[in-house]
């Protein structure tokens, strides 16, 4: 969680030093650019991360270009091909309605990637401002916000999301919101902690000294400097959201059956495991490969930004 990298050492005694500190905090400085290059090099040296990025890219392209990769539709029922094993006609076999499992897995990728991105956007969209405000404003506001976060953390793991689904009602949209809200505490705590350590830096002092208002300091100077851990957490949180989303879908709290969502497909294949293993194996593999590749990317980003960074 250590995002505190002093841009200049020692107290900024002169106005020139302050100006230098401010410039260094901006993202246009040459030092920042070379650090960017260093990060790219560190990321590229991490074999797991690069492999993860390649696999994820393939998965995204496969989901986007699903109609070009298969002639089957994910909801086309063909009773004659029910339970057809994997083979030339159905690459991953067919389910009990004769629907092509390969096509369903491809189209299902669209849903899972969407769940991962939207849920993370919800989580970061609420959590980051909450953490920023709590860390910058402090006082009673901070106390109140962090108490709410603590209460949310009192419901472990998936239970917070499950509780929210219970309130909002089942359905894919509600599921994404619920999973997203479930990730709010993580973002809020991380950002608050990073802000608390970043605000001790000289460039924050310098920004205050030249008369920046609290909000300007927060958005223009503190936020860019705590971005690294936020990006890492957001990446890992996409993987988590895909996993949680498919779990809630499996439990019947999200999308409804004709949907090719991977969790739904697994729930479908569960009863016919002995007869048609392919109905369960392929969607599950898809979930695992997707989350695995994103987790590898997140790990690589963490090491590229700052090897000492600790998240979760």
């Amino acid at each position, binding site marked *: 969680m250590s995002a505190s990298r002093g841009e200049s050492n020692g107290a900024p005694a002169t106005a020139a030093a302050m100006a230098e500190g401010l410039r260094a905090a901006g993202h246009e400085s040459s030092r920042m650019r070379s650090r960017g290059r260093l990060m790219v090099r560190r990321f590229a040296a991490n074999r797991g991360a690069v492999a993860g990025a390649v696999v994820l890219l393939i998965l995204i392209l496969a989901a986007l270009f699903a109609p070009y990769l298969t002639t089957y539709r994910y909801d086309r029922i063909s009773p004659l091909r029910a339970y057809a094993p994997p083979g030339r006609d159905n690459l991953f076999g067919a389910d009990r309605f004769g629907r092509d499992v390969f096509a369903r897995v491809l189209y299902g990728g669209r849903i899972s990637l969407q769940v991962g991105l939207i849920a993370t956007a919800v989580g970061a969209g609420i959590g980051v401002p909450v953490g920023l405000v709590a860390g910058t404003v402090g006082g009673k506001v901070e106390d109140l916000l962090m108490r709410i976060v603590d209460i949310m953390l009192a419901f472990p793991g998936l239970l917070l999301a499950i509780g929210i689904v219970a309130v909002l009602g089942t359905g894919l949209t509600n599921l994404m919101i619920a999973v997203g809200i479930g990730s709010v505490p993580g973002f809020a705590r991380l950002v608050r902690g990073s802000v608390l350590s970043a605000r001790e830096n000289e460039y924050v002092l310098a920004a205050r000294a030249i008369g920046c208002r609290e909000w300007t300091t927060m958005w223009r100077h503190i936020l860019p400097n705590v971005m690294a851990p936020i990006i890492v957490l957001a990446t890992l949180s996409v993987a988590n959201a895909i996993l949680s989303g498919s779990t809630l879908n499996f439990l019947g709290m999200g999308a409804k059956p004709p949907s090719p969502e991977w969790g739904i497909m697994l729930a479908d294949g569960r009863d016919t*495991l002995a007869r048609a293993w392919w109905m369960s194996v392929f969607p599950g593999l898809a979930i695992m490969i997707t989350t695995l590749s994103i987790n590898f990317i997140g790990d690589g980003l963490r090491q590229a930004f700052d090897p000492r960074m600790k998240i979760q």
Partner: protein
Amino acid sequence: MQRYLVRRMIQMIPVLLGVSLAVFLMLHALPVDPVRMLAMETTTGTAPTTEVSEEVYNNLRRQLGLDRPLPEQFVRFVWKALHGDLGKSFRNNRAVGEMLHEQLPWTVRLTFAGLGVSLLLGITLGVAAGLRPNSWLDTTSMAVAMFGVSMPIFWLGLMLIYVFSLWLNLLPSVGTGPESIILPAVALGFHASAIIARLTRSSLLEVMESEYVRTARAKGLVDRAVVLHHALKNALIPVITVVGLQFGALLSGAVVTETVFARPGVGRLAVQGIIERDFPLVQGFVLLAGVSYAFSNLLVDLVYAVIDPRIRYER
């Protein structure tokens, strides 16, 4: 120690109040009117089409105590919950407390079995990786851990059923016999073991650098003795803290595991409750989960304070 215990207990109060407030507000945050829903259910069965008469509605509202001011309702809710009264299920009119109480032992057994698996597997992997950093054993162990965090519990469960029950015919996939807990416990524990493995590894690496380990080596102890008697003991202290967190993960994982293996338990009850919109049941479950998580964390902190006396004097 006693002062620490008292202080830690007092710290629990706002958490427990917050948890019960959140659970209490669940029913009031609903986009639908639970009273109307319940009234329709009880008068017209499962197909609520007709409007409920104002009289029936108001009677039911009074009966449930929902006509009182909110703060009074909350005090009542907490008071009743303290006495084990969690209201009645919307579906079968049974006491929620009783329903949960019936199913709880199954979930407790599964959670502890899962915790056992995760500790055994996690510490083994972590020690194997930490002893020879950057060796093939390290890479393999950490890869297994990465699979653990990325694999959906329900899928691992299904695959275990396929291999060990359907294919090899070794273990039962469903049922309630004593050996029926093995597969669910493995499915549940594998996920949690990943974090324990990573933590054990980094903690062991740190301890192996310390001076007392060097001393132990210097006086001629063999590697195994150093690790078992000196390093591991201290390396496992941070692992205890995550056990509390893992307990929470296992608790929510049990919800999924119970469904996959068709085991009885509070998790499966709650899943049904959510799908059938049985709010008192869901409220009861969420409250139970939150409170037991809080107590498990308290227990872990106390164990931690007993093992490591430095903790007691902090703050």
